[in-house]
């Protein structure tokens, strides 16, 4: 696993994700180029529905791109069998979902220990490690609470604890501070930057511009594309050069244009 530090963890080229067919066809991701190096803390911003969650899902191997190339640690994910993808999710990726997704009938401890079940850790050790990590989040007295007995902020912290319990190298956080007050948000952000300092790669979606200060790089998305990127300010210009359209015109025409080129490309593929 010792890859050269300069080698990107994530490399996406012209990545596309289409939902629906026929008239309902819709590109949630419409040509994303993104390179993430190890140890980056990236904040992703953008209006609702621009494809942020979809992007995280594809990065986390929960979903497959419709088109384009995605290299994870240099390996093309297209070649991964579903079992291998599951293994990578179990060992290397930690998800914090937009809606936390705790299992209602498992208590806090069992919820946090869940990812360890699938990475082959024995039961006692699982409980031990889950308990340790909960201590780090000051939730040790809540270990045997059921999810519905927790406050919103506690639920969020449990979800983060679960994402971190298997010591993943990539953490994908979808609005981890969703509907928290600013104080709780900053506590959670402090925790994430602690993890970042240990050398983990973090991609975090947020709607709160204040929180981007914790990140090393900020990306904004628009209509399934990367709009701005602090790491590659040139990129934006280049893109605009390629598509010299104003915003409203761009939305309409590009969608139509994209549709035809894509469908013709699909046909050609077949």
């Amino acid at each position, binding site marked *: 696993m010792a890859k050269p530090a300069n080698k990107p963890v994530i490399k996406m080229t012209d990545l596309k994700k289409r939902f629906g067919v026929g008239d309902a066809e819709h590109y949630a991701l419409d040509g994303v180029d993104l390179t993430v190096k190890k140890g980056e803390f990236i904040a992703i911003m953008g209006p609702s529905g621009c494809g942020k969650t979809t992007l995280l899902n594809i990065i986390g191997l929960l979903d497959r791109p419709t088109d384009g190339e995605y290299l994870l640690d240099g390996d093309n994910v297209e070649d991964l069998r579903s*079992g291998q993808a599951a293994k990578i999710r179990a060992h290397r990726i930690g998800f914090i979902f937009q809606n936390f997704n705790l*299992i209602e009938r498992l208590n806090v401890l069992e919820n946090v220990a869940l990812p360890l079940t699938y990475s082959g850790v024995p039961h006692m050790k699982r409980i031990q490690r889950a308990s340790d990590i909960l201590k780090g989040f000051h939730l040790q007295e809540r270990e045997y609470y059921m999810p519905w007995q927790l406050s919103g902020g506690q639920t969020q912290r449990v979800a983060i604890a679960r994402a971190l319990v298997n010591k993943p190298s990539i953490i994908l956080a979808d609005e981890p501070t969703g509907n928290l007050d600013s104080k709780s948000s900053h506590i959670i952000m402090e925790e994430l930057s602690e993890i970042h300092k240990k050398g983990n790669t973090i991609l975090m979606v947020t709607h709160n511009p204040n929180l981007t200060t914790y990140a090393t790089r900020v990306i904004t998305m628009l209509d399934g594309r990367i709009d701005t990127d602090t790491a590659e300010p040139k990129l934006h210009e280049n893109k605009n050069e390629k598509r010299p359209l104003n915003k409203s015109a761009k939305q309409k025409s590009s969608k139509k244009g994209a549709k035809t080129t894509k469908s013709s490309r699909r046909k050609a593929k077949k």
Partner: protein
Amino acid sequence: MLLLTDHYRVARQALDRSKTRAFLTMIGVAIGVASITAILALSGGVSKVIGRQVADLGGSVAVIRPSTGRASLADLSNPSPSNAYSTSPLQERDVTSISELLGVEAIAPLMTLSGSVRTNSSTPSESTIVATSPALQQISNLETADGQFIDSVTKQNTAVIGTQLSIDLFGTEQSIGQTFLVRGQSFTVIGILKRLNQPINYNNIDFDHAAIISLESGKLFNGGIAQIQQINVKAAPNTNMSRLADSIKLTLQNNHDNQKDSDVFIGREIAQPTSELFQFVSAVMAVIASISLLVGGIGIMNIMLVGVSERTREIGLRKAVGASNGTIVSQFLFEALIISVLGGVLGFLGGYFIAFVVSLMIPYDPVFSWYIVGWAATLSVGVGVVFGLYPAIRAARKDPIESLRRYH
């Protein structure tokens, strides 16, 4: 892959939440397994009883019966299943030819007659009329308590009767010289059989309730033709039984224009239950068992499908944190198996309970054997796998994204 203990833990957590539902589903499987267990335990009991009798015979007896290949489910609804008797292919000349074979020491044909036994004052409800030859006494170890067995010297219209029949007819065990009627024909009692208490035996005759008459008398009731249901052959000491059985088969085929219409049983084969009632009850129980196993299986599939859709989000989440499709399949399969195996255990115990209750009413006890345990286990595991697989695969096929999106 997950350890079995992990699967067990996950399944337990899932089942704990829906205990009642799981329990009700279990009952379906339990009834099926209980019926099978009861059938096997009781039929094992019959085989054991008859097997002991066969063992008492010292392994020197061969039994010839008409083939029952024609027996089918349709026979169950036949108002007179015993009509098989009227078409028995065994004839008197078979008896003659077999008696000439090398190694045959004694031979006794058994002809059961319909019609009741009565006196002018009483008609016992339970009685059997058997026409046979004197050799039956020796072959089947029938002892007389009083008087003598039928023999070739005694004149016709004499009979040997069972102790219970004597009591039922005449109110006493001492009835030598008394007469009774069979289809208007009068018979004189010349002997009383010792009480056997073997209502189940390889002759299919409860001798305690039987009136034994000579084959000649029996034939007279049947237009002079012997309708033989069974031929008992006793071999001379040190005869190779299977070779004898083969030559009997050959003889029968020669006599019957090469038609294979009868079977020759030796040793333990003789002990297989042949009673029609028993077979009827077994068949009914087997049908009940298969239906309830089917219903139980459908119940499992149903509860599992409900579980899968209820837990869609959980499945998505488990996949997101690293569960592979295979793991999800085994998790749900394991859950189905817990239900079906617990049902199986319950059914196995219940089946023995039923068998013991039934055995209070019948003259033999159920037996325990690993063979029955094996059947119960195979059936319950089989039902779990067969009906749990589809829901499990459905669970594994769920798209994690959709699952996580749809339910929150």
